[in-house]
C-alpha cells in the first residue's frame, strides 16, 4: 500500500502559521474558560457543576448493580436522607452513587435493597477522607510540575532554549485544550486524568522532537549567517514535510489504539482513553503549528535584528 500524498509532500505549513495561531488561541481560550468554570470556585458562583472527582475533594462513591430504573434508585437514596448524585454507567442497571454523608456502602446497599425490594450487588466503593483528598491534590500538582521540569530540562540540554520555550508553550496549549474539552463535557477529573495528561505531554514532546531533530539536521547544512528568512522558512517546511509521513502514521496507529480503548475499554478506562484520543490530534498539531511556528518566528525576529 502506498499513500500518494505522503510521498514527497510539499505543503507550505509555515505559511499558514498565522491562521494556526488564531485557531490555537480560540481553542486555548475555550479550554481555559471551561477549566475555570468546572474546576475552580468561580464556576459554583454560576451554579455550574464542579467536576473534581472524590480523589481530590474527598467523599464517597459507590457503584452498584440493581435491576431498577434510575429514578427509583434516586428516590431511594433521598428516602435514606442522602444528598446523592446518581449516574448510569456502562450498561443499564449499573449505577454510580456519589455522596458526602457518612454512610457505609454496606448500609447503603442494605437500605437500597429494603426500599427497592430487589437484590443489589456492590461493585465498587471508594471513600476518600478530606485529608487524603487535599494530599492527592497536592501530589497531582507536584507531579505535573516536576514532570514538566524534567522534560524541559532534558530538551534544553539536547536542543536549545528557543525550542525549550516553544515546547513549554506547546505543552500548556495541549493540556489546556484537551483537559478543557474533557471538562467541558462534564467528565470528572480524577487521578487517571492527571496520568493521561502527563502521558499526552510525553507523546506531544516526542512528536516535537522528531520535527526539531530534522530542523537541526537541515540547518546544519547552512552557516547560520548565510540563512535568509526565506531559506529559514523553507528549511522548517522541508523538515516538517520530510517527517510528515512518520508523524501521520504514528499518530494514526496511536489513534487506532486509544480509540479502541475508548470504544471497548469500559468506564474504568474511559477518562484515560478520552484524554489521549483528543490528545493525539492536539499533540500532533502542536508540534507543527505551535513549536515549529514559534521557533521559526523567534528566529526570524533574530535575523531581522541582526540585519539592521
Amino acid at each position: 500500500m502506498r499513500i500518494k500524498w505522503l510521498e514527497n509532500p510539499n505543503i507550505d505549513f509555515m505559511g499558514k502559521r498565522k491562521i494556526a495561531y488564531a485557531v490555537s488561541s480560540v481553542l486555548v481560550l475555550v479550554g481555559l474558560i471551561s477549566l475555570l468554570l468546572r474546576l475552580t470556585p468561580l464556576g459554583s458562583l454560576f451554579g455550574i457543576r464542579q467536576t473534581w472527582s472524590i480523589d481530590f475533594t474527598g467523599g464517597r462513591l459507590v457503584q452498584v448493580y440493581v435491576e431498577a430504573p434510575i429514578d427509583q434508585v434516586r428516590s431511594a437514596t433521598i428516602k435514606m436522607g442522602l444528598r446523592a448524585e446518581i449516574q448510569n454507567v456502562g450498561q443499564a442497571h449499573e449505577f454510580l452513587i456519589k455522596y458526602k454523608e457518612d454512610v457505609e456502602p454496606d448500609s447503603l446497599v442494605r437500605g437500597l435493597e429494603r426500599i427497592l425490594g430487589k437484590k443489589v450487588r456492590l461493585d465498587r466503593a471508594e471513600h476518600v477522607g478530606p485529608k487524603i483528598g487535599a494530599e492527592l491534590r497536592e501530589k497531582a500538582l507536584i507531579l505535573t510540575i516536576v514532570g514538566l521540569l524534567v522534560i524541559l530540562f532534558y530538551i534544553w540540554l539536547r536542543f536549545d532554549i528557543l525550542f525549550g520555550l516553544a515546547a513549554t508553550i506547546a505543552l500548556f496549549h495541549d493540556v489546556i485544550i484537551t483537559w478543557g474539552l474533557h471538562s467541558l463535557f462534564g467528565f470528572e477529573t480524577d487521578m487517571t486524568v492527571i496520568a493521561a495528561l502527563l502521558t499526552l505531554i510525553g507523546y506531544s514532546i516526542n512528536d516535537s522532537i522528531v520535527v526539531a531533530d530534522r530542523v537541526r539536521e537541515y540547518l546544519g547544512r547552512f552557516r547560520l549567517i548565510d540563512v535568509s528568512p526565506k531559506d529559514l522558512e523553507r528549511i522548517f517546511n522541508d523538515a516538517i514535510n520530510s517527517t510528515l509521513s512518520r508523524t501521520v502514521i504514528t499518530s494514526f496507529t496511536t489513534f487506532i489504539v486509544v480509540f479502541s480503548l475508548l470504544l471497548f475499554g469500559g468506564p474504568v478506562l474511559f477518562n484515560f482513553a478520552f484524554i489521549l484520543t483528543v490528545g493525539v490530534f492536539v499533540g500532533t498539531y502542536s508540534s507543527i503549528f505551535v513549536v515549529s511556528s514559534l521557533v521559526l518566528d523567534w528566529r526570524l525576529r533574530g535575523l531581522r535584528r541582526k540585519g539592521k
Partner: protein
Amino acid sequence: MSGKYLWRLGLIAALFVGGIYMLIPTYKLLTMSEEEKQRIGRQQLFDLKKKALNLGLDIQGGMYIVLSVDKSKVKDPAQLKDAADRVVEVIRNRVDQLGVFEPVIQKVGEDRVIVQLPGVVSKERARNIIGKTALLEFKLLADDKVFADFLKSVDDLLRKRGNFTADTSQVGPFTRLLVGYEGDVAVPEENWDKVDSILNLPEVKRLIPPGYQVLWGRTITTKDGKKLRKLFLVQKRTPLTGAHLVDAQATLGQQQMAGQPVVHITFDRTGAVIFARLTGENVGKRLAIVLDGVVQSAPRIQERIPTGNAQITGIPTLQEAQDLAAILRAGALPVPVKIEEERIVGPSLGADSIRRGMIALGVAFILVVIFMLLYYKVAGAIAVLALLANLIFILDVMAMLNATLTMPGMAGLILTVGMAVDANVLIFERIREELRKGKSFRTALEVGYANATRTILDANITTLLTAIVLMFLGVGPIRGFAIVLSIGIVINLFTSIVMTRWIFGYLIEDRKMQAVPI
C-alpha cells in the same frame, strides 16, 4: 559467511518461547471461571496465583485501605516512631486470621499504613478487624448510690442554668432523657446526641466524682426493636488490660447463656494474679469489661477467680464473637487508627474491566498489525514481530519484578501497542527516503537505522522521564500505569531497534536477499 545472524535468530526464538511459557499460568488464571476456581480448590489456586503475574485489586476484586495513626494519642514522640510499625505488625496478625491470599500491609511515610486485601469485599467485617484498636480494659463500676447522686446533680445543674424550660414535675431535665433497662441506666436512640452533648459540657464534667469517668455501653436492641445504649460510671483506674491476655476463643454459651455468643479469655501468669486479687478484693461489686472505650458488659463479681479466665458476653452474633476473639489474640493496636481512604472493587466489576481491556487490546493489536502489513509489507511483518515480543516481554519482566498489573497498567500496555511501532515507523520512513534517493537497499538500511536511532533515543528518553516521575511521585493506580510504560519503553528500544535489525541482517546477509519489500 552463511549463518552470521543465525544464532541471533535462534536467540530471538528462544526468548519468544520462554516468554510465552512464563505467561501460561497468568493466562490460565485470567480465563478461569469462578466455578473452576471453586473446583480446583484453595491450595491449587494459591499455587497458580503464585506463579502468575500479580493482578491488581481493580482486576481481581478486593479492598484497599489507608489508615493513619492517631498521633494525638501518642504522648511520647519516641513511641510514635515505632507506633506505625507496631500497627503494621498487629494488623498483619489479624489479617492472617482472615485467610486472605497475599495481603499487602505496609507503612507509608511516618504515620500511614496501607492495607490491601485481594478478594475481600465484606467491608464491614474487614473494617471491624482492621480498624478496631481492640484495647481491652477491666474497670470497676462506681456504687449505684454514687452514680445516682451524679445524675441528680446534673439535673440540678441544668435546672439552675434554666435553659431547659422550668419543669414542675419530679423528673429532672436530664434523667427525663434516660430509661431503666435490666436494672441499669440506659439511653434510647433518639436521645443519644442530647445526652452526649450534655455529658460533654464542662460544667457537667466537673460534677463527675474525682477518679471516675462516664462510659457508654454497646448498642442493644430490645425485644420490641428499640435501640438502647447503657451509661456507666466507672473508675478511671485500669487494674488490668488485654496486654496480659494469652488466648481468646469464641463459643456459644452454656446454661443460662445458652445459645449466646461468648468470648472466653485466658490471662498469662501475671494477669491471672492481678485478676485473682481484683476479683477477690471486690466481691459483690461490678466489673466493667471495656473494649475500645465502650462497655461490653458489667457482670457482678460473685467470688474470687484464681484461674485467670474471664468471659465477654453480650456480642450479637457468633461471627462477631469469632472476629473479636481473633483480634484479641492478635493484640491491641498501640494507638487508635483512623481510616483515611478506602477503595473496594467487587469481583464482577474487576472481571468485566479486564475482559473489556483485553478486547480493546485485541482490537487495537489486530488493526495495527493489518495496517503495518499493508503499508510496510515484509518490513511491516518484522515490526509486528517486534511489537509482539514487546508485549510478551513487558508481562514477563513484570512477573519477574513481582510487579502488579492494574487496569491503568492495562491501559499502558495498550498504549504501548500504538507507540511501540513508532520507532520502526521512523526507521522505515528513513529507509524509504534513502531508497527514493536511489541508494541500494543495503546502504539505505544502514543510513536509516543510524539516523533514526538518535531521534528514537531522544523521543523515548523524554517519555521515560515522564514515566519515572509518575512512578516515584504517583499514587496507587498511576504507579501501575507508570511501571508498564517505563518497562515498555526500555524493552521497546531492544525489540524495535536491535531485534528488527537482526532480522534484516539475517535476510540480507545470510539469505542473500537483494532487498526486503518495504
